[in-house]
C-alpha cells in the first residue's frame, strides 16, 4: 500500500478535483465534489500518517523525478515530522472549512470550490517539497487562488484588501527569489553542480555576512506572511485565510531559515524574539480596542502568530515543538472561532459586536461552541493552545527571560479581549429584538464545530502523539541549526549536540549565570 | 573600372534619396525612391547577389512602390504647401550626423576591408537562385514559414482595416 505515491496523490488530487468541477453543473453538486475531494485527501493523509514512522528524523515517502536537468531542479517530495503535522492539520481543516461555509458562500460557488482546492494543492506542495525551486513555485502559486478568494469572497473593501495582500506577498517573494537564486549560485560556485535540493543546500558553508543578508531576505519574506507587526495591515481585511498563512510562514522559518543560516541566527534570533514578543502585546492591545469581530480575530491571530515566531526563534527543542503544536491548535481554535463568527454573521449579517448581546438563551449550542473556541485561544489548560504556549514560554525562558515575561503578559491581554468579545456577544441582557429571532446551529454546522472541538480537547488532554511524531525531525533540525554555531563564538549556549536546551540540573547555575546576567 | 560603377550607383542613390526627403510633391518622392532602389539593385549585382537584385527590382521597386503610388493617387495628394518640415529639422540633421560619426569610425576600423576575394574563385553560382533556394528550404525553413504567415496577417489586416462599416473606420 505504501508503494503508492502517497504524497503526490495528496498534492495533485485537489487539482483533479478542480478540473472535475469544471464539468459539474449546479451549486450543490459543486459543493459535494469539493467536499468529497478534500475528504478523500484527508483519508489519504490518514493512511500516510498511519504509515509514518516517527522515530526517523529524515523525510519519508520520498518521491523524486528529475524535472529541469539544466537547472538541477527535480520534483522532489517527502514528508518529515514537522511537515506531516502541518499538512495534516490542513488536510483536516479543508473539508471542515468547506462544510462549514456550505450555506455561507452562495455567490459563484463553483469558482469558490475550485480556488479552495487549488489552494490546498499549493499548500500541500509547500509542506511536502524538498526542492527549493519547487518550494518557491508552490509558495508563489498559492498567491493566485488566495487573491481571488480574498477578492471575491472577502467582505466589503475586499478587492482593496486582496490587492494589498498581493502587494505585500509579492514584496516578500521577490526577496525570497533573490535569496534562492544566490543560494543556488553559491552552491554552484562551491561544488560546481547546480542544484536546488534543500538537503544539499543545508550542507553549504556560507560566509557569515552573506548568511546574514540571505537570512534577512528569507525572514522578510516570511515575516510578511506571518504577519509580523510592521507588515500586518493587510490581515484585518483579508482575515478569511489568515490562519493558513501563519502555518506557511512558520513552516518557512523552520524549514529554510533555521537550518541554513546558523551564524546569522546567532545575532538575528534575539532580535526576532523581541519583535515577536512586541507583536504579541501590540496585537493583543489593538484587539482590545476593536468593536468589529472580524478585526478582533485578525489582531488576535497576529498576537498568536507572534507566539509561534517566538517559539521558532527560541532555537531549542521546547520552543520549536511548542511552536508547531501552537500552529496546529491555532488553526483549530482561531479557525473555529472565525467559522463560528461567520455562521453568526450569516444570520444577522453585521460584524459589529454591539449589535449582539444576550444570545445565551436564544442560541445556547452556538454560545457553548463559541465559549470553547474563545477559551482555547485564551490558552486555558486542558485545551490545545495551552500546550503550545507553555512549551514556547519554557523554550524562550531559557534563552531570553525578559522577552518571555513580555510574551507572558500576552496571556492576560488575550483573556481580556476574548472575554470582552464573549461578554458583548453572548452575555448581557437581550435588548435588541432582532436578536430574538436567530435560530440555532443546524446539524451540519454543529458537526463541523464539534469535530474541531474534539481535536482541540484531544490535543489539549493528550498531546503526546503530536509531540512524538515531530520529536525526531526537530532533533535533526536542531543538530543542523547548531552545527556551525559551535565553531562560532559562544553565541548560543547550546554546546552539546543533543537538544539545545541548556543542560539543566546541578550544573545549571554555571550555565545560567554565565550568559543570563 | 568597377570603382566607377560603384561611384555612379552610390552617387545616384544618395542624390535621389536626399532629393526625395526634400521633394514637395509626393509623386516625385516615390519616383525618386524607385531610382534609389534601382541603383541599390545595381550595387547588389556588383556584389554577386543576382537573385536579391532581381527581387529588389521586381518586388521592392515594382510592387511596394507601385502600392505607394496607388495610395497617393487614391488620396489625391497635391503639392504640400506651407511648412513642409517639422520645427525639429535642425535637431534631426544634427542627430543624423552624430549618429553617422561613431558608425563611420567603427566601420573604418574594420580590418578585413579592402581585400575583396576574387569573384570567380568563390564557389560558382554564389548568390544564384539555386543556392538561395536550397538555403531557404533547409536552414531557414522556419523563418520562411513565419514570413508567409506574416504576409497573410498583413493582407487580412489591411483588408479589415480599410473595410467600411467596421469598428476601425468608425461608420
Amino acid at each position, binding site marked *: 500500500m505504501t508503494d503508492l505515491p502517497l504524497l503526490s496523490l495528496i498534492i495533485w488530487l485537489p487539482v483533479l478535483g478542480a478540473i472535475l468541477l469544471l464539468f459539474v453543473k449546479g451549486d450543490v453538486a459543486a459543493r459535494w465534489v469539493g467536499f468529497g475531494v478534500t475528504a478523500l485527501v484527508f483519508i489519504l493523509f490518514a493512511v500516510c500518517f498511519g504509515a509514518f514512522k516517527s522515530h526517523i528524523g529524515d523525510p519519508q515517502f520520498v518521491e523524486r523525478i528529475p524535472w529541469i536537468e539544466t537547472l538541477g531542479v527535480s520534483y522532489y517530495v517527502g514528508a518529515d515530522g514537522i511537515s506531516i503535522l502541518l499538512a495534516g492539520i490542513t488536510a483536516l481543516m479543508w473539508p471542515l472549512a468547506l462544510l462549514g461555509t456550505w450555506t455561507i458562500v452562495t455567490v459563484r460557488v463553483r469558482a469558490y470550490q475550485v480556488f479552495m482546492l487549488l489552494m490546498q494543492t499549493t499548500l500541500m506542495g509547500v509542506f511536502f517539497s524538498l526542492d527549493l525551486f519547487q518550494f518557491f513555485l508552490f509558495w508563489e502559486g498559492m498567491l493566485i487562488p488566495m487573491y481571488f478568494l480574498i477578492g471575491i469572497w472577502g467582505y466589503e473593501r475586499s478587492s482593496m484588501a486582496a490587492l494589498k495582500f498581493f502587494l505585500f506577498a509579492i514584496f516578500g517573494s521577490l526577496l525570497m527569489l533573490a535569496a534562492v537564486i544566490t543560494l543556488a549560485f553559491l552552491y554552484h560556485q562551491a561544488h560546481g553542480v547546480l542544484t536546488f535540493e534543500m538537503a544539499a543546500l543545508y550542507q553549504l558553508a556560507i560566509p557569515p555576512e552573506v548568511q546574514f543578508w540571505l537570512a534577512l531576505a528569507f525572514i522578510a519574506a516570511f515575516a510578511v506572511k506571518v504577519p509580523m507587526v510592521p507588515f500586518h495591515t493587510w490581515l484585518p481585511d483579508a482575515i478569511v485565510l489568515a490562519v493558513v498563512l501563519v502555518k506557511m510562514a512558520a513552516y518557512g522559518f523552520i524549514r529554510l531559515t533555521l537550518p541554513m543560516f546558523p551564524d546569522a541566527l546567532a545575532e538575528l534570533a534575539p532580535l526576532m524574539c523581541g519583535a515577536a514578543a512586541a507583536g504579541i502585546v501590540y496585537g493583543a492591545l489593538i484587539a482590545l480596542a476593536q468593536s468589529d469581530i472580524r478585526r478582533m480575530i485578525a489582531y488576535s491571530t497576529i498576537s498568536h502568530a507572534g507566539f509561534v515566531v517566538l517559539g521558532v526563534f527560541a532555537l531549542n527543542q521546547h520552543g520549536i515543538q511548542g511552536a508547531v503544536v501552537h500552529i496546529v491548535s491555532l488553526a483549530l481554535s482561531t479557525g473555529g472561532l472565525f467559522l463560528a463568527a461567520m455562521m453568526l454573521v450569516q444570520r444577522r449579517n453585521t460584524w459589529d459586536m454591539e449589535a449582539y448581546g444576550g444570545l445565551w438563551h436564544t442560541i445556547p449550542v452556538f454560545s457553548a461552541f463559541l465559549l470553547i473556541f474563545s477559551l482555547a485561544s485564551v490558552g486555558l489548560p486542558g485545551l490545545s493552545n495551552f500546550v503550545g504556549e507553555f512549551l514556547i514560554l519554557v523554550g524562550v525562558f531559557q534563552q531570553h527571560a525578559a522577552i518571555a515575561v513580555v510574551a507572558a503578559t500576552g496571556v492576560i491581554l488575550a483573556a481580556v479581549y476574548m472575554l470582552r468579545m464573549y461578554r458583548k456577544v453572548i452575555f448581557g441582557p437581550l435588548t435588541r429584538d432582532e436578536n430574538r429571532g436567530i435560530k440555532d446551529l443546524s446539524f451540519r454546522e454543529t458537526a463541523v464545530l464539534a469535530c474541531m472541538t474534539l481535536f482541540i480537547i484531544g490535543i489539549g488532554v493528550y498531546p503526546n502523539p503530536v509531540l512524538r511524531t515531530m*520529536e525526531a525531525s526537530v532533533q535533526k533540525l536542531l543538530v543542523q541549526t547548531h552545527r556551525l554555531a559551535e565553531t562560532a563564538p559562544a553565541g548560543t549556549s547550546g554546546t552539546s549536540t543533543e537538544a539545545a536546551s541548556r543542560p539543566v540540573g546541578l550544573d545549571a547555575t554555571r550555565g545560567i549565570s554565565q550568559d543570563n546576567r | 573600372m568597377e570603382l566607377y560603377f560603384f561611384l555612379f550607383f552610390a552617387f545616384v542613390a544618395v542624390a535621389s534619396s536626399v532629393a526625395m526627403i526634400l521633394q514637395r510633391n509626393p509623386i516625385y518622392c516615390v519616383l525618386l525612391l524607385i531610382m534609389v532602389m534601382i541603383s541599390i539593385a545595381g550595387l547588389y549585382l556588383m556584389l554577386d547577389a543576382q537573385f536579391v537584385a532581381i527581387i529588389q527590382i521586381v518586388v521592392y521597386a515594382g510592387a511596394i512602390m507601385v502600392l505607394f503610388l496607388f495610395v497617393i493617387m487614391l488620396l489625391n495628394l497635391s503639392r504640400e504647401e506651407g511648412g513642409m518640415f517639422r520645427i525639429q529639422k535642425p535637431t534631426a540633421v544634427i542627430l543624423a550626423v552624430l549618429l553617422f560619426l561613431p558608425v563611420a569610425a567603427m566601420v573604418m576600423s574594420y580590418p578585413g576591408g579592402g581585400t575583396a576575394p576574387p569573384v570567380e574563385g568563390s564557389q560558382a553560382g554564389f548568390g544564384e537562385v539555386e543556392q538561395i533556394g536550397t538555403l531557404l528550404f533547409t536552414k531557414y525553413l522556419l523563418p520562411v514559414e513565419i514570413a508567409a504567415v506574416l504576409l497573410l496577417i498583413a493582407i487580412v489586416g489591411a483588408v479589415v482595416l480599410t473595410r467600411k462599416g467596421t469598428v476601425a473606420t468608425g461608420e
Partner: protein
Amino acid sequence: MTESFSYVWLIPFLPLLGAFINVFCNRNPRVSGMIACAAVATSFLLVLAVFFQLIGLPAGERSVDVVVYSWITTGTFAVDVAFLIDPLSTVMMLVVTGVGLLIHVYSIGYMGKDTCCVRYFSYLNLFMFAMLILVMGNNFLLMFVGWEGVGLCSYLLIGFWCERQSAANAGMKAFVVNRVGDFAFILGLLLIFLYAGSLTYADVFAVDPNVLAPVITAITLLLFIGAMGKSAQVPLHVWLPDAMEGPTPVSALIHAATMVTAGVYMVARCHALFAQSATAMTAVAVVGAFTAIFAAYIAMTQYDIKRVLAYSTVSQLGYMFLACGVGYFTAGIFHLVTHAFFKALLFMGAGSVIHALEHALEKGKDPQDLRNMGGLSSLMPVTYKSMLLATLAIAGIAPFAGFFSKDLILLGAFVNAPVLWVVALATAVMTAFYMFRLLFMTFGGKTRMNPPETEKVHESSRVITIPLVLLAILSTVGGFIGIPHVFAKGMDRFGGFLAPVFSGLPEAPVPSSSVELALMVLTLLLAAAGIWGAYTVYIRGNTVFDRLVPRALYTLSLRKFYVDEVYDALIVGPIRKIAWGFSRIVDALIIDGGLTLAALTVRSVGNVIRYSQTGVVQHYALIMVIGALVVIVYVTGYLGP
C-alpha cells in the same frame, strides 16, 4: 503499594462524568441535581476510603504517587498526569468533596426552580473536577491546570445569570484578576523548571537549596502573587466582593470553602520552597495580616449580607496566610478546614434568608440588603440557630471550631511576629463585631419589614436546612480534632496527621503553657467585647459609636477604600486608552498611512512621466533615434574618429 491507590483517578473523574452527562445526555432539571449529587457523593466516599487507607499506612510512608499517563514529553521537559496522595492532599480532598457534597444537596433546594439549572449543576461538577485536579496533582503543571480550570468555572458560575450585565462584568473581572495571578504563577513555574529541571513536587523539593539560591525569592514571591490572585489577597482582592453576583451556593462553595483556599494550599504545598526564603515568608505574613485587618475594617460597614461575608472570607484568608507566613503551616490548614465549615454554613444560611425574602419582599426591595431584614429569628428558627453557631465559631468563642484554629494562628504570630499578632488581635475584635452585627441585623431586634411581608416569610425546605444543621454540628465539633496539647496531650490529631507533610520545617518554638492559656483568655475577652459592641449598636440602637467614629473613617470603609475606582483610573482606563491609541493612531495612521503614502508617491511620479507622451509621432521617433545613438555610442565606445 501504589496499586492499592490505583482507583484514585476515579475521584476527579466522577464529577467530570457527572458534568458530561448533565451537559449532553440530560435535559430534565430535577434529574440533573440528582446526577450531580450522586457523582460528588461517590467521590466523597472514595476520598473517605483513601483517608482510612492512608491512616492504615505507617506515618512515614504516607505519600503515594499514582501516575495515570504521561501528558507532555519533549526532550528534557516531561510532565505526566499523576496524583499525589498524602495527608495534606487528603485533608483538602475531604474538605472539597465533603463541603462540596453538602452544597450540592443545598443547591437542589436553592436552584430547583431555576430554568437552566442543568447548566448550573454541570458547571458545579466541572468545578469539583478542576478543584480535585488542583489538589491531587503531583506536579506544578497539573496544579496549574486545576488552577485555571477553577478560575474558568468561577467565571462561568459568577456569570451564571448572564442576563444581568453586572453578573457578566463580575465574571469577567474575576477571570481577568485571576489571570493576572496566573501570569505570575506561570513565570514562577518557568523559573522552577529552568532551575530544577522538572515540575514534579518531589523532584523540585529534592533539589538542594544552593542550586535554587539565586532565584528562590523570585520563585516564591511569584508563586505567592499567583496565590494572592486566587485567594483574593489585598491588591488582587477586588474580584471577590463582585463575585457575589453569582448564585449563593456558588459563593458558598467557590468563594468560601474551596477555590479561594487553593492559594493557601499551594503555599502549604510549597512550604519547602517558602522556608528557604525568609523574605518570602515575611511577605506572606505581612500581606496576610494586612489583608485580614483591611477586609475586616471594610466588612464592618457593608449592608449587603453576601458582601459582608465576602470581605469576612478575604479577612479569614488573610489569617491563613499569616499562619503560613509565620511558619505555622499546620495551623493555616487547620483554620482553612474549620473556616470551610462555618463560612460555607454562613453563606448557605444567608442564601436561605435571601431565598425566603425573595418571595416575601415587594418588588424593588433588595432581598440581600440587611436594612430590609430584622427579627427573623422567630420566623426562621433552624437557619437562625445554625447561623448563630457559625457566628460564634468564626468569632472564636471557646468550644467552637474557630476558637482553636484562630488561637493557634495567634499563638504562632505572638511567637514569631509580635507586631502582626497585635494586628491579628484587632482583626479578631472586628470579626466578632461585624459577624454579630450581621446576625443581629438579620435575626435580632424588631423587624424592619412591614406586616404583609413578614407573613410570607417561612423557614426554607428540609433539603436546604439539613446541610445547615450538619455544618453547624461540624462548626461546633470541628475544633476538637486539633485541640492544642495545652488542654490534652496527644489529642492534636489534626496536627499529628499533617506532621509528616511538614516534617522538613524547623521545629516551631513552643511557648510555656501558661502564656498560651493567658493568650486564649485575652482573645476570648476581646471577642466578647466585639460582640458587646455589636449588641449595643444594633440591638439597643445606642448611637454611642456614631459620635466616636469620625464620619470620614466610616465612609472610607463603606466605599471600600475606593479601591475599584483607583484600579479603574490607574490600570483599566489607561490600558483602554493605549489600546484605542494603538489601534486608531499607530495602526491606522502610521502603518496604513505609510502604505498609502507609498502608493501616493508612486502615482505622483506616474503623473510626472505622463506628460512625456505628447501624441506627436515624430517625438517618439526622435526619442527612438536618441536611444539608438546612446546605445551605439555606448557599444562602440567613442563618439567620432
